[in-house]
Every structure is written in structure tokens, then in C-alpha cells.
């Protein structure tokens, strides 16, 4: 048999054909990869601020303008004596939103995330394919924002010398009306070539970190404002209903609730005595023990799940880069990634490893204000180009978080926290005169000797919410003292003008 095989010279043709087929298939993979990068993923890449064409265009092509909601020009172009184009911005108050565009120091804020549109490089792929044959390759787009210029300036002014953030939005559409972060900076001085270097060096070295947009990228311990998230998860998962009370709770008020050797403490037992508290009463006096017990009965999985529905755990879908808010560092053995019951109980009232962005907390309040359905936050409402015309960006839902009935129960509790006999002592100054106001204050303990962060989230009018607000003031003390009056005055200003 061996010899027989030897006698017949096997031709190489058959195996050669196999190799040819494999190599052709490999080349077909290359062709489809070229199609993937050149067509399918091209829009994303060619609009990226890292794209060489975007960077090159940003140096030579006049960028589109940026308008506030009322048409005020927030960003425009100016030509210096050397003929170089640079950006001029309306006011320091918008610096953290609009950002800056500098040939030297790059771009930040909307100037960065909408770089391709502002430089006029972004179109749909069909128009892109033909635009490059035309004489004018660039079609700079003007951006119109939902930002209320007056409210934005008022918010920055209200924060004053504090470091902090204010987020105001319309819960029905997700439109951002104010997005203030302090301290602010002079963006025009960064883009002006004659002052850029000195300004930028000073800003980068400033320990107050003025270049950090706190409203979107700042991550803070939330304290008691986080109890609204726990209430959403508790009601949504069915672990509690609005009438649920805990028999252990009144007794634990004096010495604290023992969870695995850790004592959850409260400061309101002088007011409530031995009455068992339900959702409304517990929210009114911001009862840590009630919420710790609710967190434990809801469980880590549902807590993380419901928070995730509002955007926790990842960057938010938004026109500016955002930091991810979290309930826990994760990786723990307990459901949801908590390391033990102590962490879960503490997270349920906003301590432990829970950190949030002010924008995220505004979305939590917006969920309640909009009857349980969360609208995606957005700043840019339309883009207008000379040849591409106007594109309007409408509201998008991020989905229903909880039922309207559950949202209304939490709304009632939040109204009580602002309007109630006991509640108003925690939220002095938050009420809009003559309008039913809902809210929740927070005092985020930082451990050590640092003063706590002061928080307030809320909305008004409770019957037909038109404005949602989240206020954070870094290390300013108790919620009632600093954040709540800022929220009250800004909501009042907006609603009075809206009438």
C-alpha cells in the first residue's frame, strides 16, 4: 500500500486551491474591516475631538456660535491683530458649560464634545461623501442650548464664594436650564492667544480646581438626599409600601440601631419620640434608622438595579462628559457588590462608599417630579448650519423607573419634608412662597474634621412640577443652612418669571 501511494504523485493543485481560498477569505476580512472603519464607524471617528481633521479645522475655520435659550450669544469668534481667530465668551458664569477652545490648550466643555459640529465637519455620511468634492468643505454649525442665561448667572451668583454646583432642569423635557459650577473661570482669557498661557497656568495650579465642572464631573458623598433613591428602590421592588413601619425603629432611636456591630444613629428622637415612622414621617425628619432598615429589606441587588435605571453605575447619556455615580465600590460578596450589611445600611442613607454627581441627583428628583418616568438630560436643543439647515433635538425618555403611584407617594413625602411642621426645620428657605414645594435636604458626613457637604434636591410646584433643582455646596455644613435657601431662591426666581 505504501508503495502504491508512492507510485502516484499526488498533485499539489488541490492543496494550493485550499490555500488560495483561505487567503482570499483573509483578504475579504480586510475589505470588510475597511468597510467597518470607513463607513460604519466613520461618523463616530470623524467627529471625535481627537481626529486630525477636526483639530486642523479648529485652528483655521471660524467655529459656529453658541446661543442660550433666549438667543443670547454665549460664544462667538474674534480675530486678533495677527489674523488669528479666537473665541470670546459672554460671561464667566457659563465657563463650566460651554468650556473653551484654544489652539494651545485644546478644548473643554461643549466646545470639546461638539467640536466636529462647531467646526463644521460633521454631517451625515451621505452628505460627507459629497461635501469633500465641493469647494467649501466646512459647514460650521451654530448650537442653541436649553440653558437659561439669566438663571445660570443667578445660580452662580447664589453659590457666591462657595465651591459647589447647581443643576436646574425641566422634568417634562429633560432640558437643562442651569448647570452652574463654582469657582468659574474666564474662558475668553484662555482662548485669547495673548493671555492664554498665564491664565491657563494659574488655573491649573489653583487648589480650588476651577477647571473642574463640578456639576457633571464632581463626585460627592450624597448624605440624606440619597434616601430618595432608597425610597424609589424600596417602593419599586415592593419591599416596602408607603405605610410600612418598623417595630424596632422607635426603640433604637435613643441609642442607635445595631447592624452587625455598627450603630446607625439619628438625631430626631426628641421630636418623634416613640412613634413608629412611615415613609412620609421618616422622610420629613430624615430618619436614618428607617432608611437603613428599608435598605436592608430592599437588598443590594434591587437598590443597585433601581439606581441604575436612573443612570448610576455609568457615565450619563449627556452632551457633556459626566462621571459615573455609584452606590458601592463593588466587588463585595453581598448582592449588588456590597461588602456587608453595614455598608448596605449606610449606603441606604447616603454614606459609606456612595458617591454621586450633582447632575445625577437632579435626575433622581426629576424622576419623582415627572411621575416616575425619567427624561434624558440635554443641553443642545438645535444645530444650525448654512448648508445643512437646522436640526432640532427633541426630548428622549430614559424609561420608566417606577409607577406613577409610587412616585406620587415619594412626592408626598418630599412635600412633607419642605412644608411639614418638622420638615421645614430641616429645609428652611427651600419653600417657594405661595407654591407647594417638594424636596429633601442632605448633610454628607465626610469623616475626619471636614465640614459636611450641604445638599438639597427638590422641585416645584408639587402639583405640576416645572422646575427641578439639585444644589451642592462643598463643606458648607448642614443642608438647611446653605443649600436649601439657594434652591428656594432660584426656584422662586424661575417660577415667578415663568408666570
Amino acid at each position, binding site marked *: 500500500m505504501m508503495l502504491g501511494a508512492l507510485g502516484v*504523485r499526488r498533485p499539489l493543485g488541490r492543496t494550493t486551491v485550499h490555500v*488560495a481560498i483561505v487567503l482570499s477569505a483573509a483578504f475579504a476580512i480586510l475589505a470588510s474591516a*475597511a468597510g467597518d472603519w470607513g463607513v460604519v464607524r466613520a461618523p463616530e471617528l470623524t467627529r471625535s475631538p481627537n481626529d486630525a481633521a477636526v483639530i486642523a479645522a479648529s485652528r483655521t475655520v471660524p467655529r459656529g456660535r453658541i446661543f442660550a435659550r433666549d438667543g443670547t450669544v454665549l460664544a462667538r469668534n474674534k480675530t486678533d491683530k495677527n489674523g488669528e481667530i479666537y473665541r470670546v465668551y459672554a460671561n464667566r458664569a457659563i465657563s463650566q458649560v460651554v468650556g473653551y477652545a484654544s489652539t494651545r490648550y485644546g478644548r473643554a466643555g461643549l466646545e470639546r464634545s461638539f467640536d466636529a459640529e462647531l467646526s463644521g465637519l460633521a454631517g451625515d455620511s451621505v452628505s460627507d461623501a459629497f461635501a469633500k468634492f465641493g469647494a467649501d468643505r466646512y459647514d460650521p454649525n451654530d448650537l442653541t442650548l436649553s440653558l437659561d442665561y439669566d438663571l445660570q448667572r443667578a445660580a452662580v451668583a447664589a453659590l457666591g464664594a462657595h465651591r459647589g454646583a447647581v443643576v436646574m432642569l425641566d422634568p417634562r423635557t429633560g432640558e437643562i436650564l442651569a448647570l452652574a459650577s463654582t469657582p468659574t473661570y474666564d474662558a475668553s482669557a484662555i482662548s485669547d492667544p495673548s493671555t492664554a498661557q498665564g491664565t491657563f497656568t494659574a488655573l491649573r495650579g489653583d487648589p480650588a480646581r476651577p477647571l473642574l465642572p463640578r456639576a457633571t464631573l464632581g463626585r460627592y458623598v450624597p448624605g440624606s438626599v440619597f434616601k430618595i433613591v432608597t425610597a424609589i428602590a424600596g417602593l419599586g421592588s415592593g419591599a416596602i409600601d408607603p405605610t410600612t413601619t418598623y417595630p424596632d425603629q422607635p426603640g433604637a432611636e435613643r441609642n442607635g440601631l445595631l447592624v452587625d456591630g455598627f450603630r446607625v444613629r439619628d438625631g430626631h428622637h426628641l421630636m418623634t419620640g416613640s412613634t413608629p415612622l412611615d415613609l412620609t414621617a421618616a422622610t420629613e425628619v430624615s430618619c436614618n434608622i428607617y432608611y437603613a432598615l428599608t435598605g436592608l429589606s430592599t437588598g443590594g441587588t434591587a437598590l443597585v438595579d433601581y439606581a441604575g435605571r436612573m443612570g448610576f453605575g455609568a457615565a450619563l447619556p449627556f452632551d457633556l462628559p459626566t462621571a459615573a455615580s455609584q452606590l458601592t465600590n463593588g466587588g463585595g460578596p453581598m448582592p449588588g457588590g456590597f461588602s456587608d450589611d453595614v455598608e448596605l445600611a449606610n449606603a441606604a442613607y447616603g454614606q459609606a462608599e456612595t458617591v454621586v454627581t450633582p447632575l445625577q441627583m437632579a435626575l433622581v428628583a426629576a424622576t419623582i417630579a415627572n411621575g416616575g418616568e425619567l427624561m434624558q438630560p440635554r443641553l443642545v436643543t438645535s444645530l444650525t448650519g448654512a448648508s445643512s439647515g437646522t436640526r432640532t433635538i427633541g426630548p428622549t425618555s430614559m424609561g420608566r423607573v417606577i409607577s406613577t403611584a409610587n412616585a406620587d407617594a415619594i412626592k408626598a413625602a418630599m412635600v412633607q419634608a419642605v412644608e411639614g411642621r418638622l420638615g421645614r426645620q430641616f429645609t428652611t428657605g427651600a419653600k417657594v412662597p405661595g407654591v407647594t414645594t417638594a424636596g429633601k435636604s442632605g448633610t454628607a458626613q465626610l469623616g475626619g474634621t471636614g465640614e459636611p457637604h450641604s445638599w438639597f434636591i427638590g422641585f416645584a410646584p408639587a402639583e405640576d412640577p416645572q422646575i427641578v433643582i439639585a444644589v451642592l455646596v462643598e463643606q458648607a455644613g448642614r443642608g438647611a443652612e446653605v443649600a436649601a435657601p439657594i434652591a428656594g431662591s432660584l426656584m422662586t426666581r424661575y417660577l415667578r418669571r415663568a408666570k
Partner: protein
Amino acid sequence: MTAGSPRAVPAPALPRVLGPIRPRPRWQELRLLGLVALALATGSLSLGLTVSGTFGLYDPQALAIYLGALFVAHLAQVLAGRRTDQFLFPAVALLGGLSLLLMQRLPQDLVTQTFFGSTLGLAQVQLIWLLLAVTVATTLGIVVRSDSWLRRYKYSWAAAGVGLLLLTFVFGTEINGQRLTLQIGPLSGQQNELLKVILVVFLAGYLAENRALLVEQDTRLGPLRLPPVPYLAPMVAMWAIALGIVVIQRDLGAALLFFGVFLALLYVATGRISLVLVGLVLFILGSALMADLFDHIRVRIEIWLDPFADPLGAGYQVVQALHAFARGGLLGVGLGAGLPEVGGRIPIPEVHTDFPLAALGEELGIVGVIAILGLYLVVVERGLRIGAAAADDFRSLLAVGLALVIGIQAFIIAAGNLKVLPLTGVTLPFISYGGSSLLANALVVGLLLALSDKGVEPPPPPRIGSRWRRLTRRVDA
């Protein structure tokens, strides 16, 4: 039947005496070269329009010199009167012409060389290499009529190859953490380009001689049927050399190319998929080990998996190449209109050697990329055809191997540009800037041309490995 195969034609007793040389027209080649000239002139016109803004050829002199050289080469082949392949040369000539256009379009100061007091820029240096390459390919295609100098001395060639590799170890200059360039005195070159040709010559000789054994005998290893153990030794040696190249030269691309060509030829010769699978497993295990041991390989692989993790740092080059494909889109931005310079610099570092496909992808679009890939497939197809029609196993394997070297090398670097494989430092044949690459690939083309002429000298009777002789003798007795 005895050891001789039925093809044992009586060997010619005397070396063949050359008959009178009669010119033979090559109309097919001429027609195709006409199309090449048309395509390149259109490209030059497009370059002229975008770069100078005037209606006219961009640097008509360089283009005329290149096209002139092509026609001289064509004429020389006509006069030589050999029946060699007529498709190969035009396909390669178009790739070379695209290279010239690309090098004209890139900043000329990427490469400068001073010859006899005059300083030449990128396109001029590349033009000189292209002319030399055309000369080498044509000369080999005309002159080489016997393969005995390759066939007889396969082990000498292998020794020369290993020697070349060892020289790198001693004289190699390290550039960007890779030891790819051999510098002895004033001469410098990328030895791996030459090594790939030597490898194919050796493999063709070895496999042609031992093919029967590799096919017929078995060693069972579990479910796998493998050839006799002694005949696996070269395979293991090849594997070790490939990994050695990774370790010593840090050249992942050459290792991939050599091993890929080796496996492909092994399969062509034996038809045994099990060998290829074992080889692949060995290579993957080896690469995993290398990635574990060496930082630069791990970094390469990490960049490949997610270049966007660090788009301005480690992943910069790869990300910028992908951006170039994206900007090009379906039809491209046009020759000369792409690669927006930022601060006077082209966005992709090393574009002329490592990323010519990305640059062409931006300017000629996906359509252009597919056309270029198609040209490589034409070259491979011609090579495989020449192999299939060859008179004996050695010539057949040699032609197939030479064709696969071009095809696999083009695949590796194109895949690196397109993030299909990790980026490696191999050149894009006929297009990348560089003398070593152009000359080595011209060598390949020249040998393929020579092999495509069947009418010159019949092959010697097949030689069979000693072990097979012993085996058959035993049976005869």
C-alpha cells in the same frame, strides 16, 4: 515500481545550449501597462490639482522616468523572447506606481539621502529604489533559466539565512526597540526581507524532497496523526527560529510572516491539516508565553485589543490610522487632500513605512483599498498558477511559496493598519518606502517570472530523502 517516479524523464546529459533568441511580442502585458500608465497619470493629475491647484501632472518628470522604465523593462522582455507570465509585471508595476504617487504626496523631509553632494527627498529616493527593483525583477525574469543554484544548495541557503539572523544579533542596530536593521559599514538593510526569500527556497527544497514521507507515514499522538518524529524536527526548528526572531529582533511581524509561509507551504506539500493545527497551537502558545515574558509584546497586544483606551498615548498611531480610514470613507478625499497636518506634522507617525495603506485608504477610500488588496490577490493568483503549472514539486512549491510571501506579508501589515491583527513592523510589499523591501520583493517577482517559463530547462530527476530510499530498498529486497 521502484524508487523513481513515473515522471523520471531522462535527464539531459549536457547543459542546454541556448538557441537563437527570437523576440516574442507580449501584447497582453503591453495593454495592461498602458492601463497602468493611464491610472498613474490620472493619479498624478489628481495630485497636481489638490496640491498645486493647477490642472497638470504633479512632478511629470518622475512619473515619466518611472513609466519609461516600465516600458524599457517590457521591451527587454519582448526582445528576450521568453514565454513568461504577462500579468504579474503590470500588477506589480501599478502597486509601485501608487507607491511613487504616495511618496510624492507625503512631506519630502520624512527621508533625505545625500548622493554625490545632492540631497534627495522621500519621493526621489523611492524612485531610485523603484528603478532598481524594476531592473532586478526584469533581469532575473530574463536571465534565470536554471533552478539548480537554488535546488542543489538548499542547506547552504538555510545556513546563509541562519547566519544572517546571527549577524543581526551582533551587528543589528536597535530602532524603536526593534532590531530590524543590519548595519555593516556603510551598508544597511533589513535582513528579514532577504531572509523571507531564502526561507521559501529552503522550504521548497526540503518539502519537495521529503513530501512523500510527510504524507504517508504516521506517528499517532492521541487523536492526531502526525508524520514520523524525525521529520517534525524542522518544524520545531522553524518554530524556534520564529520565536527567536521575536526575542532577538522583537519583530512580531517577521515571525508571523515566516511561520505563516511555513505552515501554508507545509499544507500545500502534504495536505495534512493536522500539521497546520499543531503548528498554529504551538505558535499561539509561544506568543502567549512571549506576551507574558516581554513587555513590548504585551503592550502591542493591549493596544490592539483597545487602542482607544489611550488614544493620545500608546494607541496614538493605530487610532490615527483608523481615523484616516474613517475620513476616507467610501470614495476617499482624493490624492493629496487627506492627512490633515496639525502643527506642520502628518497625523500618523511612520506613515511611509508602516501605514501606507491607511494613507491610501484616506485618499482613495475603501474603493481604493479594495483595489489595492485586489492587486495583491492578482499577484498571488499568478504565482499560484505558475506553481500549479510547474514541471516538478520543487518549482511548484517555490512559486507557491514566493507568491504566498507577498500575499501573507500584505495581509499582515494591512491587518495591522485595520486593527484586524496587532500592528507589526513589516512593510506593505511594493508600496512601503524602503530599498530592502522593494529589492527583496523584486527578487520574488523576478523568480516568479523566470519560473513561469516552462520551456527552458526540464527539471532534474526527483531526489528522494535518504530515509525513504532505505525504506523502499527494504521492500524491494
